[in-house]
């Protein structure tokens, strides 16, 4: 089954209006911020962003905010519960006639992978089970980035982080496999889940536009290429974001009411093309090539696509 965009077929259709303005304290080349910028073009400004502790906490630093929407910083483990409180209160106040309907706002959780994959999992699971009408935007840079790039449950096999160094006993660095948060979410049967990459803006915009049709939890896993943590020049963020998809490492997909559709079928370049761009994988190539580790990563990608296509 081939996936076709219905709304966004041409780059010119992407709204020119900005809702995330320049001049944030985030790192140059932040792939997460670029995804948020593109997402906000569909979400608009009638939004309250409920933020979990993570890199995006730096977005709103008193007295500045780069957003033309509202903001509530919560904790690392409970942003979805914050979204629950805001959404419920908005509903109650509108029902009781204390807030005009036109003042309603969308509730959007912002969480990094550290919050999303582990600490806030209880809170997220609860919110999905309660069918909370909200968006969850996870900027996944595959590490605890804001604290200096330590191993998170989203860190993939073979990546080097500050707490999973390459060492004699584990020369590949990270030994774990990346947790499959998409499937954990899908097991909760929310109406809409998608992965996105900022290098595929039409795909991204289409997904946010589609999700808007559904009431309930709408979950987005955004590939957040991270120059600071992954050790590449910020100029290469688009290349890293593109190759993650083209090598089959970051599948672009959505699940509407649980049914998974891959929205882009890459020709699947060898994973080395993606790995070689990043310092976090350099130890796989220097001083000696870790053939087994690279083959393991390739094999995992092959297995994934064999199972889904």
């Amino acid at each position, binding site marked *: 089954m081939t996936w076709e965009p219905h709304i966004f077929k041409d780059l010119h259709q992407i709204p020119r209006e900005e809702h995330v303005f320049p001049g944030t304290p985030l790192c140059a080349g932040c792939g997460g911020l670029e995804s948020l910028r593109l997402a906000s073009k569909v979400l608009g400004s009638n939004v309250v962003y409920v933020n979990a502790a993570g890199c995006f906490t730096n977005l709103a630093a008193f007295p500045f905010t780069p957003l033309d929407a509202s903001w509530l910083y919560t904790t690392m483990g409970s942003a979805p519960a914050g979204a629950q*409180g805001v959404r419920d*209160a908005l509903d109650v*106040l509108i029902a009781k006639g204390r807030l005009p309907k036109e003042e309603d706002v969308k509730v959007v959780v912002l969480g990094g992978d550290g919050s999303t994959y582990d600490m806030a999992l209880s809170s997220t699971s609860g919110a999905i089970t309660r069918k909370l009408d909200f968006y969850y935007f996870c900027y996944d840079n595959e590490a605890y980035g804001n604290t200096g790039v330590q191993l998170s449950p989203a860190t993939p096999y073979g990546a080097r982080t500050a707490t999973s160094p390459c060492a004699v006993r584990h020369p590949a660095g990270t030994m774990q496999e990346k947790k499959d948060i998409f499937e954990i979410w899908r097991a909760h049967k929310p109406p809409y889940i998608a992965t996105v990459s900022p290098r595929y803006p039409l795909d991204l915009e289409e997904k946010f536009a589609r999700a808007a049709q559904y009431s309930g939890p709408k979950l987005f896993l955004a590939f957040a290429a991270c120059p600071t943590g992954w050790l590449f020049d910020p100029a290469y963020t688009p290349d890293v974001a593109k190759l993650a998809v083209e090598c089959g490492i970051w599948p672009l997909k959505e699940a509407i009411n649980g049914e998974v559709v891959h929205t882009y079928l890459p020709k699947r370049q060898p994973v080395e093309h993606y790995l070689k761009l990043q310092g976090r994988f350099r130890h796989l190539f220097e001083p000696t090539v870790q053939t087994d580790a690279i083959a393991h990563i390739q094999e995992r990608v092959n297995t994934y696509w064999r199972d889904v296509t």
Partner: protein
Amino acid sequence: MNQASQMMTGNLAAAWGARLADVDYVPAFPITPQTEIVETLSKWCAGGELNARFVTLDSEHSMMTAAGAASATGARVFTATSSQGLLHAFEVLYTVAGWRVPFVLVNVSRALASPITLEPDHNDVLAARDSGFLQIHAETCQEVVDSILMAYRIAEDPRVCLPVMVNLDGFVLSFTREPVVLPEPAMVHEFLPPFRPAHLGFKASAPHALGTAVVGGSIYTYFRHQIHLASMNGLAVYDEAAAAFERICGRRYAAIDGYRLDDAEDVLVMTNASASKGKAAVDAAREEGRRVGLLRLRLIRPWPAEAIRDALQGRRAVAVLDQNLAPGQGGILFQEIAACLYHEALRPRALCSFIGGLGGKNLSEGEFRAIFEQTAEAGVRGKGIGPVLLYTEAEHREMQQMQYLAHELKTGR
């Protein structure tokens, strides 16, 4: 006032407080001994007696976040917890106080693990004393419902804008039925205006950011100090609320509650439901000729230092009975009482610290007698004692028997 009283538990009284306050939102999570409160509210929300949304969250951490977030959105919010639940939400207590959101949290006191237990003491609620929440500690079921109404008025006052915690003792009060007069809705309406905050709420037409990060200690200091100033404003706001409550509902609750203090040489300081036992012990001691009285601390945050000084200056000796234990230090409230009396020229000749009632342990007549005797001696001597643990020989013999039993079961000998 022609109002009939009805028998109800402290937990039911707490639920009535929320109902009479006409709250909009109740985020909940069950924990003994608080659960009866949220069970009751869930029935009322489902049955329409209370026009509020009731939601069970996945943890107290989430529950407290949802409570703060809903309050920040402009809803009147009530929630309740106990013990481990309060500590599970600990991070959020500080967070929502910083948001300056005026909701009410009932804590039903229960001692903390380990060892795990269900019975009351005050290490849970006092652990939260520095969070920014105001704290009112109740002695009776009547006081529970009245304090919740007062708590909303104080929290929502523009001079305060902080969450308020109302504490009641688990089991001793939560599951004990006492006669309670429920204020008439018209009285409540007069005492507690509807919640229509101008400064809170997430609206499409007026985006704003709450809980933003700060860079630099001076900005942080400014905002944290604002919380302190607002809490201190709570002293006057509390007194106004108490006066208004007395005028409308006929019951007066000062920040501190003095019992037979007028001519008392020695004063025992207590909090919460056990103060009722303390008052009975004062009566008994008076019959034996001791001039003693009791000071119950009701408002713990903000700390009513002035009122406490007025009540305790010129006494021979003061004993503080802490139902909590700060390991490595002693009684928590003893330290605060001592600190606020230090500069008083007429400060008591002796301050005595007693630790009792931990994990629901009984406070016996004998223990109170010992407190009064030892406090009087300390007053004569001019030198305080403590911390003294209230723990009898008979109790220790019982403990030793259990230790022998545990040893036998383990070793087979």
